[in-house]
């Protein structure tokens, strides 16, 4: 079977620094793969390269069997970027933003039924009643859900998400997990960058851990210790930062480096 995402010997350099090297990653149909790692380990760079925002300096990326340089069936792929808090200049409604998810590849004009399709996606994330609100009137968590709805609008077979729950309020996180569970049951393939597994833990079938731009773990998802599962767990003790490959893990120590994503 053709892999959904196929990354071979990928290297990415930004400016003078080599952010990723020797990355091999294959995601097959129906998998839910979590991409974990400390801040600055290259998680975002990897997904941004997979969806074609960044150009690899070596190696190759294929989506649904087509190299990025070729004719990728973009309507089957939904990308959710990390939320940017900076609002753009002109006001735009949630429905307008979600509607832009209906454009892909060479489709430069909205379909006739774009409003109902955008509303359907908004309903999936529980924001239908906010369709005509300006995005600046929504909370951070709701803005993030708008971005998820934008990716869902085209009814993708694959979703690639970059820290979808970072800085998102608890009810939005739960709503997000519920939405993802339903979609995965319907056969969605997912690659998701996470800081910690959190509410998505039951869904994740495989975890890939990045460290200093290399994959250091690819296999069973790490299980967080019970006292780490709580939302308000305050992480104060230091961790051994190296992740042993085969030793059973209780805590990977990602959350000790709280700070800004580079």
């Amino acid at each position, binding site marked *: 079977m053709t892999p959904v995402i196929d990354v071979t010997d990928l290297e990415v350099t930004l400016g003078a620094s080599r952010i990723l090297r020797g990355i091999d990653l294959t995601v097959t149909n129906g998998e839910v793969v979590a991409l974990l790692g400390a801040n600055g380990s290259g998680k975002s760079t990897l997904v941004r390269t997979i969806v074609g925002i960044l150009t690899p300096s070596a190696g190759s990326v294929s989506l649904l069997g087509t190299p990025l340089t070729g004719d990728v069936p973009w309507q089957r792929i939904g990308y959710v970027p990390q939320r940017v808090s900076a609002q753009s200049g*002109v006001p*735009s409604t949630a429905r307008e933003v979600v509607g832009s998810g209906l454009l892909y590849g060479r489709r430069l004009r909205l379909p006739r039924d774009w409003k109902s399709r955008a509303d359907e996606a908004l309903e999936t994330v529980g924001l239908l009643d906010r369709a005509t*609100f300006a995005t600046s009137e929504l909370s951070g968590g709701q803005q993030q859900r708008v971005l998820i709805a934008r990716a869902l609008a085209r009814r993708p077979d694959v979703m690639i998400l970059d820290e979808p729950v970072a800085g998102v309020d608890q009810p939005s996180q739960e709503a997000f997990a519920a939405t993802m569970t339903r979609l995965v049951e319907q056969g969605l393939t997912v690659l998701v960058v996470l800081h910690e597994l959190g509410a998505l833990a039951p869904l994740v079938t495989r975890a890939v851990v990045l460290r200093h731009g290399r994959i250091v773990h690819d296999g069973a998802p790490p299980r967080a210790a019970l006292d780490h599962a709580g939302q308000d767990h305050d992480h104060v003790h230091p961790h051994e930062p190296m992740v042993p490959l085969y030793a059973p893990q209780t805590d990977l120590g990602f959350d000790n480096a709280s700070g800004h994503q580079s």
Partner: protein
Amino acid sequence: MTFLSELAYMFSDPLMQRALIAALLVGLTAPIVGTYLVQRRLSLLGDGIGHVALTGVALGWLVGAGMGLVPQDRLAIPGAVIAAIIGSVAIELVRERGRTSGDVALALLFYGGIAGGVLLMGIAGGSQANLTAYLFGSISTVTTGDLVLTLILSVIVLAVGLGLRAALFSVSYDEEFAKASGLPVRFLNIAVAIVAALTVTVAMRVVGLLLVSALMIVPVAVAQLTTRSFRRTMQVATVVGVTVCVVGLSITYWYNVSPGATIVVLAIITYGIVAAIAPIVTRRRRHDPHPDIPDDVDLEPSGTARKDGDETCNA
């Protein structure tokens, strides 16, 4: 003479007819392009293109003079179109690189454009008055030929600006998402740059190269004060643009003032008035100004928790 007959007289004046049509086209096209520029935080792009276009005008003069064309300025607008397109595409390519030196590159382009224009204009035999006409507008010199060219350029601007609205919105709202959707992002960015360049040359006769940017940006700024959606912002901005252009130009029919400056001052006054009134008008229809975040604490269903709390939030 009554006001109406004065109006009728104004509309029957062929010079005024041409000027009004030009003003109408500028008022319509400039805010449409301006909406995209404001969205991408490139409000001053029009200004930069205007500077570069002056070199094109002067080159047009120079070539016209060399070829012995009469009148000398016959190639001014084509020159401006070519220089503006080259300039705007260059600016777009610098922006795409996202280098820190891009800022300096833009400054070089802007000031090189205006200095080169002034210098070449002098060599081509243009007078101070000619220069002022391009910098601040000279709507009384609009010929039928200019008008036809303006009309063609406006049609192109409208076709791209409205026809590709959804795609241009997507790229302007979130360029990375557009890339991750496989949209032809570079093509769309260059389309915006070219359309902005054409708008600058369309508006050159009416408000002049130094004030072009105001007509692209100020109507959008006015519209933003009252709207929630991108589509409505663009609509309101064009209404404001057309109104200030036509009214401003009509004022100059009776009073001897600069049309370009009058139009821009009118637009800014409109902004001031709307900014003062909008909060009073919109307060009534807006909901609770606090961000829509559920409570972190659980309130007892009885006691001090008020039942109508949710209703006021969603009203």
